[in-house]
């Protein structure tokens, strides 16, 4: 939950924006106010709500077993003219037996000019190129965790570059923001203190700043074949690190947040003098991760599309140099764009791997004193420790990874550790959706994964889990009813069996 002062500022800002909107609405037909009311309950057996029901839903549904929430959102859009539009929303969730009791899920204002936007606040961001319902998602800018507070600008979808005759489109976004979970991180750190007074955790960080950007380009998607390429990049920087020193005393160290630091993290060029500037601290300023994508689309005909893709993930320099084998996601997606009900609308099949991590070990003589610095002169920059970091502890937001949930988030750690304990994973995933009638659609997806722990702390026994979900969705007018069954089998989440019911209503005030 954001600190009260922060949420009050946001609500005041949003209220002013919305007031500005309504008072300047010269024509009420250009102003639209809608609302969404949702209630959802998940109940069953096992320690957790089944994995597929929780994953890639912006952490709306709690991970604990037998949970539920009620959600209310108001969205306002005002179209000034054909080029300018101002919009905003406030979205609150109240949960029971959940990871959060009450949470301001979204609160933002968006100013759009044609296909470009400037946005401030907290908003659930959509997947740029991966299918939001069926794919395992993105390694860095995924949809698995609560959204970040940020100020960013970019394009509304793909923008056709002028003078290219429709042959080049780009999709870009970039901005700065902040992790809102400082209190959560501190509480989670302290939960690691055991009966003997020792803490299984050795550090945590607060006030972490956030930088994100993505750039994707594609050729004309209406041609028989088209190509998509691009990169997305996320950085944790700034903030204050709390860690135990050699005497076991918790000490703090703040990272710089001056203008230079904001500029340094845009391109991770590193500090060649890091030997002198505190070895093992900041060879590269900030925690950098992301993925690079190549994708080919085949329009079989006007109604059927087949795409194959490879998302090459990276965390730090060795991954950026593509030294981590085939770590990443290989996938194939089929889309049926035929109008009317289609038994099969979309199919996604993916293979994800994170076991290479640029090799099993990391040795840099600069990290160690003499004589070993001179005895071992080779430089090997492996053991990338996906999603973990020596300063920021973990790439999480309220305990959930914003990236690929197949790397089990620390919120599930029963041992109290706040880091990822199993980031060397191989997984196979499939999802399918379609319509049974004009009102009834379905979605089914399943994943099987194996995990070996981390290179530093391998699992004594390999992890495995099969997680699946079957969902039916009935839509009639403003109402939407959904029923689902999901289960987990394995030694990651245990055996979980969850029934899920959701009712939603979309209404218009103006």
């Amino acid at each position, binding site marked *: 939950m954001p600190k009260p002062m922060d949420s009050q500022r946001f609500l005041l800002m949003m209220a002013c924006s919305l007031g500005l909107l309504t008072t300047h609405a010269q024509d009420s037909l250009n102003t639209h106010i809608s609302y969404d009311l949702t209630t959802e309950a998940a109940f069953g057996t096992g320690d957790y709500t089944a994995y597929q029901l929780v994953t890639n839903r912006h952490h709306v549904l709690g991970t604990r077993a037998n949970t539920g929430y009620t959600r209310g959102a108001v969205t306002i859009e005002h179209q000034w003219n054909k080029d300018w539009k101002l919009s905003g929303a406030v979205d609150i969730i109240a949960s029971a037996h959940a990871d959060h009791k009450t949470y301001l899920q979204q609160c933002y204002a968006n100013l759009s000019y044609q296909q470009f936007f400037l946005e401030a606040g907290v908003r659930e961001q959509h997947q740029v190129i991966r299918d939001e319902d069926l794919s395992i998602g993105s390694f860095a800018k995924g949809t698995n965790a609560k959204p970040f507070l940020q100020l960013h600008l970019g394009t509304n979808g793909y923008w056709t570059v002028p003078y290219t005759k429709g042959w080049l489109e780009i999709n870009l976004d970039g901005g700065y923001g902040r992790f809102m979970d400082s209190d959560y991180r501190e509480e989670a750190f302290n939960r690691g203190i055991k009966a003997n007074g020792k803490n299984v955790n050795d550090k945590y960080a607060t006030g972490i700043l956030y930088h994100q950007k993505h750039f994707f380009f594609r050729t004309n998607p209406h041609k028989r*074949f088209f190509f998509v390429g691009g990169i997305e990049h996320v950085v944790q920087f700034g903030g204050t690190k709390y860690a135990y020193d050699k005497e076991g005393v918790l000490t703090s160290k703040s990272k710089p947040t001056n203008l230079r630091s904001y500029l340094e993290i845009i391109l991770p060029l590193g500090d060649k003098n890091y030997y002198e500037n505190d070895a093992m601290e900041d060879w590269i300023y900030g925690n950098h991760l992301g993925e690079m994508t190549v994708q080919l689309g085949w329009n079989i005909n006007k109604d059927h599309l087949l795409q*194959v893709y490879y998302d090459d993930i990276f965390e730090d320099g060795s991954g950026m140099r593509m*030294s981590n084998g085939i770590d990443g996601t290989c996938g194939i997606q089929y889309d049926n764009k035929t109008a009317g009900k289609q038994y099969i609308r979309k199919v996604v099949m993916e293979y994800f791997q994170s076991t290479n991590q640029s090799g099993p*070990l990391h040795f840099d003589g600069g990290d160690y004193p003499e004589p*070993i610095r001179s005895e071992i002169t080779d430089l090997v920059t492996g053991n990338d420790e996906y999603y973990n970091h020596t300063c920021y502890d973990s790439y999480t937001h309220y305990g959930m990874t914003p990236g690929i949930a197949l790397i089990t988030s620390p919120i599930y750690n029963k041992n109290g550790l706040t880091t990822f304990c199993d980031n060397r994973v191989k997984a196979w995933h499939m999802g399918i959706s379609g319509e049974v009638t004009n009102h009834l659609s379905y979605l089914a997806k399943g994943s099987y994964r194996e995990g070996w722990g981390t290179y530093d702390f391998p699992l004594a026994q390999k992890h495995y889990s099969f997680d699946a979900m079957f969902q039916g969705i009935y839509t009639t007018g403003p109402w939407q009813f959904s029923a689902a069954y999901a289960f987990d089998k394995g030694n990651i989440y245990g055996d979980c069996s969850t029934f899920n019911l959701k009712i939603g209503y979309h209404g218009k005030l103006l």
Partner: protein
Amino acid sequence: MANFYKKIHLPSALLHLPSAFILLTSAFFLHTSSCQEGREAGDLLGQWRQTGTDDRYVSFAGSVALFHDGQGRKVFANFQHVGDSLMIQCHSIEGLATDTAHIEQHFGMKPFKDIRLKIDNLDDDHLIVSQGGQIWSFYKY
């Protein structure tokens, strides 16, 4: 009855397929034919767990080896792989006697500064080394 799929006119699609396939394959291999970090270790590259244990690991990358117990104790080493010979020279970061004991007693490989092993078997998943009749069996983990 809902339409399931439509006939796909293959011939014209197939004419375009080779060039598209070449494009994607080239992009894929350009992307993945990267320089695997530590590839100088050759077939030894990777983390190996000693069979029958869960607290003895040896990793090889570049010309650096790492012995660890999966609980935080680490000893780095230089290594050379020549034919079926494997030579390892361990180094203690802080000059601790416990590091020497970790290698010579816990792993049973000695002496600390000059371990000489014979590789009896090495493939993608298994590594068997021996020294004076003593055999260590590892599998990729």
